[in-house]
C-alpha cells in the first residue's frame, strides 16, 4: 500500500532552500495520520453520550438531545461527501433540501459548516454537545461515536 509520502515528489531545485522545503513537504505528507482515505470517524464532545445508530437522526435534525445535553452538530466540508453517502444516505442536494424544509417548518437551523478536519476537531473539543465527522484519526479530547 502506498503511503501519502510516496506522492510527495521533489521537483528540480531552483533555489538553495528548495531541498529543505521539499524535506518539509515530505514531513507534512507524513503527518496525515494513520487513517486511510476510506476511514470516516464521527466524533463528539466529551460530554456527549450517543449511539452510532443515532448519528443520522442528529444530522437531519430529528434528534436534538443526548440525555439532557443539547446536541450541536457541525458539517465538515472536507468529509461531507463521504458522510452523506455512508451515513445520511442522501445526495448533497437532497441534504440541503431536507434542511431547508426542516428549517422552514420547525424553525431548526442547519449545522454550521467547518472547512477542515482540524477546524472540525477544534470545534468539537471546545463546544459542549458538538458532534461532527473527520477522515483523519481523531486526536485525544473527543469521543469517537462510530467509524464508517
Amino acid at each position: 500500500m502506498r503511503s501519502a509520502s510516496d506522492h510527495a515528489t521533489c521537483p528540480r531545485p531552483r533555489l538553495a532552500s528548495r531541498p529543505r522545503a521539499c524535506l518539509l513537504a515530505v514531513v507534512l505528507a507524513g503527518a496525515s495520520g494513520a487513517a486511510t482515505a476510506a476511514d470516516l470517524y464521527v466524533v463528539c464532545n466529551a460530554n456527549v453520550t450517543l449511539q452510532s445508530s443515532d448519528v443520522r437522526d442528529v444530522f437531519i435534525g430529528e434528534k436534538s438531545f443526548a440525555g439532557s445535553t443539547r446536541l450541536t452538530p457541525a458539517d465538515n466540508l472536507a468529509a461531507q461527501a463521504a458522510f452523506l453517502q455512508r451515513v445520511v444516505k442522501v445526495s448533497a442536494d437532497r441534504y440541503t433540501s431536507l434542511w431547508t424544509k426542516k428549517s422552514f417548518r420547525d424553525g431548526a437551523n442547519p449545522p454550521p459548516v467547518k472547512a477542515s478536519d482540524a477546524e472540525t476537531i477544534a470545534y468539537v473539543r471546545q463546544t459542549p454537545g458538538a458532534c461532527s465527522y473527520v477522515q483523519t484519526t481523531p486526536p485525544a479530547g473527543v469521543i469517537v461515536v462510530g467509524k464508517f
Partner: protein
Amino acid sequence: MPRTTMNFSRYRMGALALVAVAIAVLPSAALSATGKQDPELAEMQNKLDQSLQMIQALTERVRELEAKQAAATAAATPPAAPPAAPVVADNSRLEAAEQKLDQLEKENASRTADDTGLPLHGFADVGVGTHNPINPALKGTYVGNLDFYLSPRLGDHTRALFEMNTEVGSDGTVGVDLERAQIGYQFNDQATLWVGRYHTPYGYVNTALHHGSWINNTLRRPRFLQFEDNGGIMPAHTVGLWLTGSTHVGGGKVLYDFYAGNSQEIFGGVLDMRNAGNTNGHMGGGARLAYQFSSGTAEGLMLGVHAFTARIGDNAMPANATRVLAYGGYAVYDTDQWEDIAEIYLFDDRDINGGSGTHRSNAGFVQFGYRATWGVPYARYERTVLEQTDPYFAALEGGGSYHRVALGARFDLDLKSAVKLELANTRLTDRSLEQYSEGLVQYAIRF
C-alpha cells in the same frame, strides 16, 4: 479507540512546515529579472534561512519525542538510546508555537460556537401565465410572494419561528401578513409545545410545504388547500397551543400533533384565524397521527390520519354558525426518486343557527412527482364536492366545487433557484360551470 497526542503534534508540525514553505516561495517570486536582490529581499532571505533552520530543529525535536513515546510504550524493550542534547532554545520555541496554536484553536472554536447573529431566511417568486395561478380572472405577469422567516438560536429548550410574508392581492395592492409567530419549549426529542400562530397540522402539505414557492416541487398547492386569503377552505393557520413530537417505534417513527386555539371566523368570504382572540370565546382544535417507515422496502412511506373541529361563524346578517368537522387521511412517499402525495378530507358539518341539519362534503388530491436528473416532472388530480347548502362552504369565497388536472415540471437552475412550468385544466362544477386552461411559468428562489 485511537487518542494519540502524537498525531496531533504532527498536525501542528505540518502546519508550521506549511507556513515555512509558503514563506519560502514568496520571496523567490520577487527576484528581479536581472538576478539581483535588493537589501530588503536579502534580509528576508536571511530570515527565511533562519526560519528553515528552526523548522529543521523542530523536526528533529518531533523525532526525538516520537522516539521517546515509542520507547515508553514498548515496555519489553530496553530504553531507547539517549536523545541528542536538547536544544533549550528549540524547546522554548516549540512550546511557544504549540501555545499559540492552542490559543488559535480555542479562539476559532469559540468564534464558531458563538451566536453569530439572527438567521434570516426567505423565499420569493415571480411568474407569467395565461391566468394568475391564484386568481384566474387575471392574466399576464405576476409578482408572487416575498417571504421572510426568522429562526433565532435561543437556549437549549426554547425555539422560535417568525414568518412575514408580503403578497400582492387581486387588486394589485401589497399586503404584509405575520404568517407565523410561534415560540415553543422543546422538552426533549419527543415533545415540543408551541404557543402562538402556527400552521394547522392537518394532512401533509399544510405543514411540510408553505408560503415559499421554492420549497414546493409543484408550482402551487392544491386549490382547496390554498391559504385562507387565496380561497382555501381549510383554516391553514391556528392561533393557540400545539403539542408535537415523534418517537421511534419498530422500524419507523410515530409522529403526533395535538392542538387547540381560537375558533376561526369568516369575514368577507375569507377565513380569519383571529390573531388577537375572538369575542365569543369559542375554541377549535384537532389532532394528527402518522407513522413514517424508516427502513425496509417501505422506507420513505408515511401514512397518517387527521381530524379538525371548530365552531365557525361569519359576519352575515343574520350570522351563520357551523360546527365544522373535517377528518381524513393522507399518504406520502418521499424518497430520493419519488415525491408522491395523496390527501383526503371528509366534512360532516352541522348547521347550528339555520337548523338545516348536517351536510357532508369531501375534497382530495393525488400527486405523483419523480426526481429525475434533469428536473421533477409531476402530475396532480384534485377534486372537491362541497355541499352548497352547508352554510360554511356557502359563506366561503372559495367554497365552490371543482376538479383540476395539472401536469408540470420543476427545473433547478442551482441550489437556490428553480423554474417551474405547469399546464392545468380546471372545471368548476356547481356555482358556475366554467372551465379554463392555464399555462404557467414560475421563477422561484430561496436565500
